[in-house]
């Protein structure tokens, strides 16, 4: 188990490094003139050259790459070309918003999909068909469309919850909850369909297995059979889907942020990409890749913890 984890951590680090390198190359080989971007069209060639020199853009590419990388491993992702703010501090102020959104969406979707998937598998019949239909609808509808729908109905028409704005958790827990509820619901709805179908499918397989029949033959109550034994054995399959959903959730959060006016990583990425703010874009890509790798690692650990065969090995 320890060796397995070490290998996974190492593979994850390599993955992040490769993503960083590729992004660095992409940003630098596309030929956008960063200095001119910053100074505007009216700058003289001399001014542009001077600006490029202050940015260090006149050095050869490998030198710049090494410079960036050697700082990055020490936790310094450079400074924004436009705002002069350290990339890490920009990320520190935006990342919690996007992450809390994605995690709240993930949690909500996990609860919903276990509930709906279990109901569909255990009850069967008409309820099962209805839930399956809803699941297909929910996994087809893009989360931002659901978000727009929620924004128009709940926030704009009914005025139950705020349409825009973010209140940090430390300022007001209630305000934070109110600002995050609608976007998290929108994200969760889109992620629930696929997971619920997975939970339903594997639960039906488990409920048809011989050890479940044996438990029933021992007179174990149906509630314990379903909630203790069957769900426990169906959990790994649900977990796998959930880890795939998380990447989609981060992507969905980027767009949802715009609808609800949340200053998260999405708006940071959007804004700095349009501006051509290379250090910020690079930082956003590397950090999101690292988060995805980390979440997958956590899910692997949970997977191993759930499976006695892996745990014992």
């Amino acid at each position, binding site marked *: 188990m320890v060796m397995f984890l070490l290998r996974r951590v190492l593979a994850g680090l390599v993955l992040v490094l490769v993503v960083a390198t590729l992004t660095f190359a992409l940003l630098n080989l596309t030929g956008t003139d960063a200095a001119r971007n910053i100074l505007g069209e009216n700058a003289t060639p001399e001014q542009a050259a001077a600006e490029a020199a202050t940015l260090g853009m006149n050095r050869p590419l490998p030198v710049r790459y090494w410079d960036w990388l050697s700082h990055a491993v020490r936790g310094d992702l450079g400074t924004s070309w436009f705002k002069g703010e350290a990339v890490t501090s920009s990320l520190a102020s935006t990342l919690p918003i996007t992450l809390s959104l994605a995690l709240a969406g993930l949690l909500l979707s996990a609860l919903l999909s276990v509930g709906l998937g279990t109901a569909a598998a255990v009850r069967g019949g008409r309820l099962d068909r209805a839930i399956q239909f809803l699941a297909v609808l929910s996994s087809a509808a893009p989360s931002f469309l659901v978000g*727009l729908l929620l924004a128009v109905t709940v926030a704009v028409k009914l005025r139950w919850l705020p349409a825009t704005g973010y209140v940090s958790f430390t300022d007001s827990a209630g305000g934070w909850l109110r600002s995050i509820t609608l976007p998290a619901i929108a994200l969760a709805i889109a992620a629930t369909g696929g997971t619920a179908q997975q939970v339903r499918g594997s639960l039906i397989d488990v409920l048809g297995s011989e050890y479940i029949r044996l438990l029933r033959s021992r007179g174990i109550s149906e509630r314990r059979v379903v909630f203790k034994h069957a769900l*426990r054995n169906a959990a790994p399959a649900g977990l796998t889907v959930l880890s795939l959903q998380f*990447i989609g959730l981060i992507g969905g959060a980027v767009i949802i942020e715009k609808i609800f006016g949340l200053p998260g990583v999405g708006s940071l*990425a959007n804004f700095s990409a*349009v501006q051509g703010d290379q250090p910020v874009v690079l930082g956003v890509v590397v950090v999101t890749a690292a988060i995805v790798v980390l979440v997958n690692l956590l899910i692997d650990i949970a997977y191993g913890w759930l499976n006695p065969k892996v745990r014992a090995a």
Partner: protein
Amino acid sequence: MTLPLPTPVVQRAHLFRRLLRDPVAVTCLVVLAVVVLASLLAPVLTSHDPARSVLSDTLAPMSAKHPLGGDGVGRDVLARLLYGGRTSLLGGLIAVLVALLLGVPTGLVSGFYRGAFDATVSWLVSLVMAVPAIIVLLVVMAMVSQNVFVAMVVLGVIFWPAVYRLIRASVTSVREELYVDAARVSGLGDARIMRRHILPVVQAPSIIQAAQIFEVAIGIQAGLAFLGLGSANQASWGAMLNDAFTNIYTKPILLLWPGLAIGLTVVSLGLLGNALRDTVGGRSGSRASSSRTPAATPPAATPPAATPPAAPPLAGDDEDLLSVVNLRVCYPREGREVAVVDGVSLTVRRGEILGLVGESGSGKTQTAFALLGLMPALATLTADGLAFDGQDLRGLGRAARNSYRGRRIGYVPQEPMSNLDPSFRIGSQLVEPIRQHLKLSARQARERALGLLERVGIADPARVFAAYPHQISGGMAQRVLIAGAVSCDPDLLIADEPTTALDVTVQAEVLDLMRSLQRERQMGMILVTHDLGVVADLCDRVAVMQTGRIVETAPAAQLFADPQHPYTRMLLDSTLEGAKPRGALPAPLEGIA
């Protein structure tokens, strides 16, 4: 997901025809056809230029000139909707094509040849999967190219892992199949094997996945345009949403048209993909296929079960622990009810071992499950009498039934390893029913379980108690299951072929154990088996089953000495024990391995 069986060419036409029988699929196809036609015919349906803004038409109401009004900068909404469809459909198509062009060949080669290519591509795939698609696309569109179709090519690359994994998994499962081996042995080249045997298998899942990619691509493309990325001159549904969003307080209806267009298109694609999956593979993981479907009685051999041939004594005997009268178990098959247990009557007295014998498919296991109330939801059970210790078992609620099962009726299954919950320790699986039925404390239940493990001949009870099922052998697992079956001192034990899955050396030990437990506790017992040797060893009385009915019931000695029914005679003749001793085996010939 269950993989569909290899679909030969003949079935492809059927697939489409079957799809047309599904009303949901037809509706989706119609919606998609309308969307495609409307986009293609955009120049015919409207004379407006989707990119031209007329200031005076800003947020214009619906009118003859602008059927859906004007948008925030005075462009015609209908024209933008129609031309926007082109962008969405073309973009989705590009993403699908790129993903398939990359994914299918790499998946085929990876799955078929494995090796270094497989390792390299699998690593590349995990690389692509580590970055959220939206962020990559954001960077590409902002810094590389404003063109949405370039972004869709990149999106196709991002979807490559999904196609690759699907194809690779399908190929891996097929390449082990016998007919692929046979093709290889008969000298077919790899290219021909792929074309003839592997491509047909991958076809259906790829079509389903293409529909899904198309659906997600349209959504993501709209999302990007909604963020304000992409060329301002190109009409798209996402850009319309963006414009409508800025006017959400003044004219929220503008959100409706692009929202509806995107929603209808992606939901139709999603439902269509689902319908396709159902048509191809049957409903995966459905209830019907998940339970072991019993063999049915051939209809021809099912005359009305008025009077069973060998009428056993019906109820009324005080010694009867279990009395069953005219038990029937039916399954729906092809629109009608088929009986797998067809009028079975039997009795078990206290301390008596009844053998239930018959070939596989005769309904003996189904009879055992019926007595325990373990029938799948599909089955219907009827009986004129089903009494255990004077109590009618018919129509018992769940709670009442659970007060019998495990407590007064124990069950030993056939296949030991698959009957233990792999996620829980053996100890906890033993303790759970003991605590529930006997209301013991955790410590008392643990002591009882350890005692039982020792009683069933396990040398190191503490170790087995703490072990997971995968850590013990099959013989030991069967001992654990026997311990579990007798853990609450039941009056009746139902054992379904308890030794069939075990090694021959272990079989005798397990049978000895069951007999000694039965004598010690004076349990009644039903021993389901096809092994007449086991019957001769253990049973007091024997009931012989054929095609869902009991054809003969007799004391064991009498049955062996003087079988009445032809089927019983046939069973006796076919067993080795009954055969005349043969001469010594001829010495094996040299040189023949």
